[in-house]
């Protein structure tokens, strides 16, 4: 597990209290019962932690992120671009 993946899971656990054992790259966001409010809080923490800007609009969320892997990959790309 990459450091980025690990940190993202830390943030999700902190914001939602979800069981960490359920967090895998192929886990579907909808199945984790993460509310839209929790999700924007998670993105805020991710952006602050990695000093990046994640393009995300709640109105088009289905097109953007379906699984945790989608988020992790997006963050990895943004972190690479930042450096």
């Amino acid at each position: 597990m990459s450091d980025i993946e690990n940190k993202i899971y830390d943030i999700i656990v902190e914001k939602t209290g979800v069981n960490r054992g359920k967090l895998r790259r192929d886990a579907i966001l909808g199945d984790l019962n993460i509310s839209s409010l929790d999700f924007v809080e998670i993105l805020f923490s991710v952006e602050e932690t990695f000093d990046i800007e994640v393009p995300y609009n709640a109105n088009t969320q289905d097109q953007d992120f379906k699984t945790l892997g989608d988020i992790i990959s997006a963050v990895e790309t943004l972190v690479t671009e930042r450096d």
Partner: protein
Amino acid sequence: MRRVVVTGMGVVSAIGTGVDQYREAIAGAKGGIGPIETISTERLTVRTAAEVKGFDPAAHFTQTELTALDRFSQFALVAAREAMASSGLTMDETLAPRAACIVGSGAGGQLTIEEGFRRLYEEGKHRVPPLTVPRYMSSAAVSQVSMALGLKGPSFGVSSACATATHAIGLGFQMVRGGLADVAVVGGAEAPLSMGCIKSWEALRVVSKDTCRPFCKDRTGMVLGEGAGIFVLETLDAARRRGAPILAEVIGFGMSADAGDLLSPSPEGAARAVRAALDDAAIAPEVVTYVNAHGTGTAANDGAETKAIHQVFGAHAPTLMVSSTKSFHGHALGASGAIELVATVMAVHDGLVAPTLNFTTPDPECDLDYVPNDPRHEQVDVALSNSFAFGGLNAVLAVRRFAG
């Protein structure tokens, strides 16, 4: 109970300062959403808004007056002067104590707060301008309007986020109807286009970077707006006695709370407010022909609002014209209900039904007649104006064409 009519209105919005400009924009299907120009967008990801263009404070106020006026109060005053002038009403010693003033704001003088606090935190200054508090208090606008027009009856601001102005207008309507006041100057004002405020909306991830497309399948969110709408309400008897112009009759006001989710609207809560407005007006749903929707252009609102309309109107729903003028003037938050009531009054008074602009692809979840892109010229006898706020606070007004 006394019948209540609208005898004056004034508006400041992205599609016009003044009712005539506003009407022209609606009739010409010309929206006011565009690139933000009043502040630097360098650090913003949202760079689109519905700004009040070409608003020159010096054209409306002296320098001394401006010292005490945040932009939201300036908007309120300009709209209030227009409303009062168009009603032809003059205050005298008998009427003034019977004249209520209820003007709401979602957040008050945000530009004043930000500028004052920026000096403290960023520049390390030790003081803020002396009128910071009376400029930023959310009741600043209502105080300024009351003072400017000499309204000495019940006066206060209300605050319910995006439903603020509708609550303010509804309360004034009830006061005049019930006899607590003979005149009510009512509405809402908001000037939220500041760096901090736009950043706050960015953080919620509900703002479109493109434009506002209410009820469309490819809608990408709301667009912030600013402005004010102010109305003069009085009894039908008094309006008749003085030969005042009667723009519409206010016949009902309904309120409800979702008591559910902070941000996600409930169709049931919205439906209860619409029903309450119809019940208050003692009318059947079938007499309504136009609904000025809350229609923010977000995924959450537009589906829920459509469901609410189906719940209330049943088989009549498909025959309704439902449009969101936020596609013209953006979402002016605490002012939006008032700016939208201007369009609603125009529907019953002028037979001008505002379209929903920027309409592209229909959304299967939003299956009503949203008056896409082109205005219609039709007689509207009864119209509703919906406002549903974050925090689940709902308010709906019903107005009727006044036929004499």
